């Protein structure tokens, strides 16, 4: 077990290091932020002073070492544009993204499981076919396009929901949250639904497949033979058994929700860290780009690590295989 753990930890470390190198060299090699940030009328001395202040005059490898040392301490430098710490900016925007991702996850579960159950119980009914057809669309439509259509329908044509921004928020444990006010709820509904679309399709498919499999099992037959109501069979016996894989997959998908939030946040002008990333890329605000990418990549590496370790605890075969390979 220890060997597996060490091997897996080392792998995560290598991935992070490679990513940081790639991101650093690439991001610091394109464009010259000085041209963007310094008054065009500044003289050469001014430019050199600013470059020295930003640490841009040193050789690239030295910049990387300095960067790495500071990154380990959570310091990704100061944003060229905002003038504050890049990490602080990311952390400041993170709650909005997390709230959106959690809301999307909730929607995916609340809509996806009942629809999937329905489709699994009556696989040949027209309604089940319609649900499956919609889930195929949910898989294949680009998120941003669906977002635009939602705005067109609900904001522009019907005028029911606001098209952008976060709305009023209240403080909970020091973090702003928008689900407690009517205004905030109105603002979060469309972006969350948009972000959830792909996951709804996924949950529908998983639930349907699980239901169809569970219905053939002996315990369901036994429950039927006992004369239980079918609502109870489905709601208790079937649901309980299919929930395990669904919960696992949903947990795994949380990371990808955060990554995909980049798109949704840009469409709905949701003030999260994804929107910050796109703004920063366009402004060549390199410290913020680097801070975002490494934060999200670390998040992913962590999620993957935890999942792998949990799996290996549950299923020794994976552990043994990894040791052999």
């Amino acid at each position: 077990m220890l060997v597996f753990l060490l091997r897996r930890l080392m792998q995560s470390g290598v991935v992070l290091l490679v990513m940081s190198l790639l991101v650093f060299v690439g991001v610091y090699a394109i464009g010259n932020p000085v041209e963007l940030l310094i008054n065009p009328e500044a003289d050469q001395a001014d430019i050199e002073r600013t470059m020295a202040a930003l640490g841009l005059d040193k050789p690239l490898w030295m910049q990387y070492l300095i960067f790495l040392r500071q990154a380990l301490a959570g310091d990704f430098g100061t944003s060229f544009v905002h003038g504050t710490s890049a990490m602080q900016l990311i952390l400041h925007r993170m709650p909005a993204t997390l709230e959106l991702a959690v809301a999307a996850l909730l929607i995916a579960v609340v809509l996806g499981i009942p629809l999937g159950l329905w489709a699994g119980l009556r696989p040949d009914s027209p309604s089940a076919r319609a649900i499956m057809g919609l889930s195929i669309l949910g898989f294949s439509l680009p998120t941003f396009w669906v977002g635009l259509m939602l705005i067109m329908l609900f904001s522009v044509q019907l005028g029911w929901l606001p098209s952008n921004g976060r709305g009023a928020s209240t403080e909970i444990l020091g973090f702003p949250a928008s689900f407690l006010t009517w205004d905030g709820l109105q603002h979060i509904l469309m972006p969350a639904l948009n972000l959830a679309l792909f996951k709804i399709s996924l949950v529908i498919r998983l639930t349907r497949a699980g239901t169809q499999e569970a219905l053939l099992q002996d315990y369901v037959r036994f429950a039927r033979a006992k004369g239980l109501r079918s609502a109870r069979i489905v709601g208790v016996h079937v649901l309980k058994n299919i929930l395990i894989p669904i919960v696992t997959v949903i947990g795994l998908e949380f990371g990808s929700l955060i990554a995909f939030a980049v798109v949704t946040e840009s469409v709905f002008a949701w003030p999260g860290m994804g929107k910050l990333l796109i703004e920063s890329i366009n402004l060549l605000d390199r410290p913020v780009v680097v801070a975002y990418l490494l934060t999200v990549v670390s998040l992913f590496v962590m999620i993957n690590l935890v999942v792998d370790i949990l799996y290996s605890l549950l299923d020794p075969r994976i552990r043994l295989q990894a040791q052999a390979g």
Partner: protein
Amino acid sequence: MKQLLDAFSSSRTERLALIILLLLILCALAAPLISPQNPYDLAQLNIMDGRLPPGSVASAIGIEEGAPRGLHRYWLGSDDQGRDMFSAILYGLRISLTVGVSSTLLALAFGLTLGLLAGYFGGRLDTLIMRVADIQLSFPAILIALVLLAVLGQGVGKIVTALFAVQWAYYARTTRSAALVERRKEYIEAARLLGLSTPRILFRHLLPNCLPPLIVVAALQVAAAISLEATLSFLGIGLPITEPSLGLLIANGFQYLLVGMYWISFFPGIALLLLIVSINLVADRLRDVLNPRLQKQ
């Protein structure tokens, strides 16, 4: 081939999808011939015709005597610079398809070579290649594309590179699993005993037998690549403004969408939608056709 045609003629939805897909490809190929104007030739644009709703007739004001084109209708409206949306969509289709198909082909070539090597030789090489592929597949495609584009910057070559990097692992994995099964078969052993060179065994004997599942994955990936390119271009970090793909057209019209001028974003969006959905349906059908298990039933 006949089998293929039969498969498509048996189902109405899939037949429709195939027809739409072929039509879209034809439109993209013939864009300069059938579009009412060249949307990127500034001489043909009339700023007075900006933001006209669908069906409007082009105005004569501002067009010089002897201009190359007479009056025409903007069947799908015009954008803020007086560009005919129908023409812009045709040209956009061209760019979207080119980027999607070329990145898929590149990734396919690279991924299948690695997959063949990994599956055929096994051992350390296999472990290395598959470990890298696994790690990459554990990240969502959009995150990898974001990292690469943040690193590389904008441009056609760069987005093709990003889409290539996102895709290759799928092909490597698919090819490897097929190659693992095939390499134990007798024809490979026979080829080896005949003393054929390894590249010849790999590409002439092993590859053709690994191809069917790859074709399906590649077809699905073209749709995914087009969709991802559109998304990235919409975000303003994909293609530059000089290469207006469907995604960029949609991004262009976004601000006008909010004030009710839906057509600038809506119609390119419909074109994108038709393209992606029809590719997906055709690929789905291909999967059924190429799957020998289903065929025997």
